[in-house]
């Protein structure tokens, strides 16, 4: 019995340590889903707690990144999604998140140019603006480098749906980015 508990504890520690490797990835997904730093951090922390609570379901040598992302996305859908529907207008008036302040400090010096920052701000603002059903496939495929098949498993939908939502989502993004270039940041509000 104690041997089983010890083995379970060891596996738990192993899963926790391996999960930490995917922290940046999970934070990116959480940030673009929740659209603010604070909720993103809560979302990631809760994902870790849930993943560790269900660590016996994880099979070693399988895709931990996809497994964690699915837990995160399901948790977001269950607990944050409803709330988000009512606050999107408020968030769109703040296209620049506190997150970039921290990033500027992390990468001081010439590497972080003004142009790069502006591009990051535009992409972030536009991603926040498009509906969640289009945003999530873009975050999974473009930001997180998942294949259509992996994204379909995470989203529990057919591969064709991933493809069509990506197509429509990117067109929406291009439309808003053009508005950004033509009319400046106010166009996004």
């Amino acid at each position, binding site marked *: 019995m104690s041997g089983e*508990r010890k083995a379970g*504890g060891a596996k*738990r*520690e192993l899963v*926790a*340590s391996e999960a*930490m*490797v995917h*922290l*940046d990835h*999970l*934070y*990116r997904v959480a*940030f673009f889903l929740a659209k603010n*730093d604070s909720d993103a*951090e809560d979302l*990631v*922390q809760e994902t*870790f*707690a849930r993943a*560790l*609570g269900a660590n016996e379901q994880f099979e070693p040598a399988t895709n931990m990144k996809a497994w964690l992302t699915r837990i995160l996305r399901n948790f977001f859908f269950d607990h944050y999604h409803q709330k988000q529907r009512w606050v999107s207008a408020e968030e769109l008036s703040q296209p620049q998140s506190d*997150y970039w302040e*921290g*990033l500027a*400090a*992390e*990468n*001081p*010096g*010439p590497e972080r140019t003004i142009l*790069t920052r502006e*591009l*990051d701000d535009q*992409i*972030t603002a536009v*991603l926040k603006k498009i509906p969640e059903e289009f945003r999530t496939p*873009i*975050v999974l*495929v*473009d*930001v*997180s*480098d998942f*294949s*259509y098949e992996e994204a379909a498993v995470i989203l529990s939908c057919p591969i064709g749906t991933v*493809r*069509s939502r*990506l*197509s429509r989502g*990117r067109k929406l*993004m*291009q439309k808003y*980015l053009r508005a950004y270039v033509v009319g400046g940041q106010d166009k996004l509000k």
Partner: protein
Amino acid sequence: MNCEEAQESITALVDQELDQGERSSLEAHMDECSGCRLAFEDELALKRNIRQTGERMHAPALLRSRILSDRRIFSEKRRSARQWLENLWPASPVYRSALALAVLVLLLLPTYYLSNRVSQPVGLAAIETYDSFRRGELPFDRTANSDEIVTRLTQAVDGRFQPMGYDLSAMNMRPVAGVVREIDGRKILVAIYQGKGGSLLCYTFLGSEADAPANAAKFFDPDKKMNFYAFSRAGINAVLHREGDVICILAAEMPMHELLALAREKSRRS
């Protein structure tokens, strides 16, 4: 294939998710249709920009700390310890008092005799050096010549290793002095940086990751495949990492996430 049919195929081509047949068909259409070719190039550029924006985004250091200290996530050992203690602790109040007294005596006796002799991890000793420096109690000779600092410190350890030197000019800091400290028989090379950006001490010595304090928060950088240990005391933050046999500790009063980012940026994989 017409333009309307081509739209979703363009998306799949951008993501390299088309099979050979679909790809050939779309390529043939784009050879004839400059509008669809342009749409493909635009979508490819957008994907690249989205990916690069994501790559520049990192989880805040504080989130790592929150996760590492979340007992639901990294608590198994602590919980096991508590269960062990509960099993050991006697039910009778008389035996409990006797056992508590015995434990207290056992703890206090060695502490009394050894309190002045217990050594501490070099990491904490480094922070104390910074504290001395902050109070102006650390003697050092200023020099504007950084090569002289490197030469002097390297000679102090008979050339066995060199002090780690960083270009911190982007942070408005430059090396102003080098000091050699000896802790537990080990020579520690301390390079002092100062400027408008504040002060930073860089410690270099032969050691291992065990030189980090036990309560340091450990971060793994998956890109560099290196561990970083963050710890603080009295408003001074420090980050330790290893490059081969050499340990480097950066200590400063700047925010921990900035110091950690600096260590991650400047470190080299061993």
